[in-house]
């Protein structure tokens, strides 16, 4: 009886110590779920989701405060990935937040630009260079296509230009599988 108690007690102590050690050793910094959600979001920082940037939206998703279908730049693929990650049901993009558009970059018509710096203030990713009363320009590789610079421009000199496919970015298409009729796939 006594030995049984001792054994159980010893077991409890050892396991408790092991758990305690593991909790210190494998401590997770921050909230990994927010990071994972944030990694799926396109980092356009456009705010179309109703949050001031991708990370706040990711935080809201992780907390369950926001739906997964509020990100137009992420599009359907993004919603699918979020649904997979969070084990939620896929749902189509909420049209209130906008529609999926081809990836674009903003272009400043440099002849019209008056150098008011308003677009620089609006750009969430510091992709516009310029100074007061000087012409501004957009660093195309850094532009996420969020369109936030369009409304502030007093002279409407910014336009969105879809990014074309080049030989470098061209992708081979998914090979067509002839053998499977599409019906049962669509039904699923």
């Amino acid at each position, binding site marked *: 009886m006594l030995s049984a108690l001792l054994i159980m007690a010893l077991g409890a102590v050892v396991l408790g110590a092991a758990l305690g050690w593991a909790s210190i050793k494998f401590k997770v910094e921050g909230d990994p779920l927010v990071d994972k959600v944030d990694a799926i979001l396109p980092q356009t920082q456009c705010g179309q989701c109703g949050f001031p940037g991708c990370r706040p939206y990711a935080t809201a998703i992780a907390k369950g405060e926001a739906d997964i279908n509020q990100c137009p730049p992420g599009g359907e693929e993004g919603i699918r990935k979020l649904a997979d990650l969070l084990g939620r049901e896929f749902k189509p993009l909420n049209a209130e937040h906008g529609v999926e558009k081809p990836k674009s970059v903003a272009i400043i018509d440099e002849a019209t630009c008056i150098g008011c*710096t308003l677009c620089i*203030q609006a750009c969430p990713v510091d992709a516009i260079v310029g*100074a007061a009363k*000087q012409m501004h320009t957009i660093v195309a590789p850094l532009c996420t296509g969020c369109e936030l610079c369009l409304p502030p421009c007093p002279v409407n000199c910014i336009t969105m230009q879809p990014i074309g496919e080049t030989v470098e*970015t061209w992708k081979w298409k998914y090979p067509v599988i002839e053998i499977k009729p599409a019906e049962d796939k669509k039904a699923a």
Partner: protein
Amino acid sequence: MMRELFNFHGGVKPETNKAQSTREPIVVAPLPPHLVVPLHQSIGGTPHPLVQAGERVLKGQRIGAADGNVSAAVHAPTSGKIVAVEPRVMAHTSGLAMLSVVIEPDGEEAWMPLYPSNYRSMQPDEIRDTLRDAGVVGLGGAVFPSHLKLKGARDKRMTLILNGAECEPYITCDDMLMRERAQDILRGAQIMRHMLGAQDVLIGIEDNKPEAAQAMREAARALGERMDVVVVPTRYPAGGAKQLIRVLTGIEVPHGSRSTDYGVQCFNVGTAYAIHETLNLGRPLISRIVTVSGNVERPRNYEVLFGTPMSHLVKLAGGRPDTDRTIMGGPMMGYLMPNPDVPVVKATNCVIAGSRAMFPPPPPEMPCIRCTACVDVCPADLQPHEMYWFARAKNFGKAQEYHLFDCIECGCCAYVCPSHIPLVDYYRFAKTEIWARERDKAAADSARERFEFRTFREEREKEEKAAKLAAKTAAGRQTAEKKAVPAAAPAGDALQAAAAAAQAEGTVATPSAPPQPATADLSAPVAAETAPAADPKKALIEAAIERARKQREAVSPKNTDNLSDAKRAEIAEIEARRAKIREMAKTHDEDGAS
């Protein structure tokens, strides 16, 4: 002399179909009505156009300048008038258009003045620049700029390998080049040997090209060069660079490593010939030997100017009416062309006119039965069926774990697959998809970083403003009257200085690099603050904030702790430059104001 040969795993023996196009000697293809020379013809940066529509060019004149070191120049293949510089459909499966120079030949073939150079008296860097500016790239099909490969390894015994294996069916351009111009090839090889400091030169030729091997042996004897012609067994893909290196030396160069690190370097015989022409004759790369074969009456090899439409060649060779496709390259790895008129480029070793009868569509695709016939033939020792499985499921991480990027797309697996699965299509799909995702991810990561930094910066500025305001209220109470009048002048100064700094940095900052914290710190927000500051009171406050901030930054720089001395020196230099610009801007502004 017998040499020990090594073996590579797998490989297949498709019908070679080479005899048809070796019956006639190489002939120069007549000038087409127009030449469309794409600027992007090699791995690396797209050359900048140097000419405009309406200009006249001479044969061999540079029309596209190399963009950076990983690039190669492009030249006018003949003399004539530039009709247009505009996007034209490329010799690429995608059917996309890229910037091309359209030349209308004047038929005079008037060369630029040519300056042969003596490579023995040149510095290696000088030779490399010459090759880059002559547009010399690998002519085996990979079109990698050759000058980048011609660097010796100081501590290694180097072996130069000339690739004359030419294992793809139908293609005979290297074979014919070796038969007819063996000495010139070896003169090019002399230059390569010189640059690499290579002791051994091995010329690998498949045993189905005895004439070429004989010609090369005789040429080596005639030049008195010790270069070994090694006949290797005919087995596709023995002409793959990695496979040939393995066969000749036993060395396996892994994917993603440079073969120089393993003491070998492998070049196509056509490249050697081009190097000879460039240095010994001064001619840039404007033409190449192209096999025209397949569904044509008279298959043969032509010496073709770049920019010649493929349809022009097919017509010359007598294309049959049931031709329904144009293939660039061989039947194992070649690419379907978007239309028959795309131009011959540096990568075009062969143009095959194809028909349904010649290349019947594959029978319907069946499920993989894991028979491992693909494993048995894979020259890269991969597990093609596993890669297929993951690529098909779009499980790209797993596909990469199974070494997707070691795949050389030789097509052996699809060639033998009893289920007729287009395996290589799946690998190409997965590879381009992975690249696209990596690009997207890099862009998203950089956007996230910049956004986070911006948020952090705004946060910090808000705090600083609040602190400043508190300090000012406290100070204001003590010396309210005294300060009120003289404060206006320095505030105005500071305002100007800030605006000038913003302006200076806004224009100086390099756009491509993500902004250095110290730089970005100042530019955008300062501009933002200064712009609407018309109200003198507001200006007063902001100037004060600005002053305080500068003070604080001077006292305790936040992100410059623990820097190396070099970095520190660099920062000091930048600061000095900035101060100078500010000074200049200030005087300039004052001048303007007065």
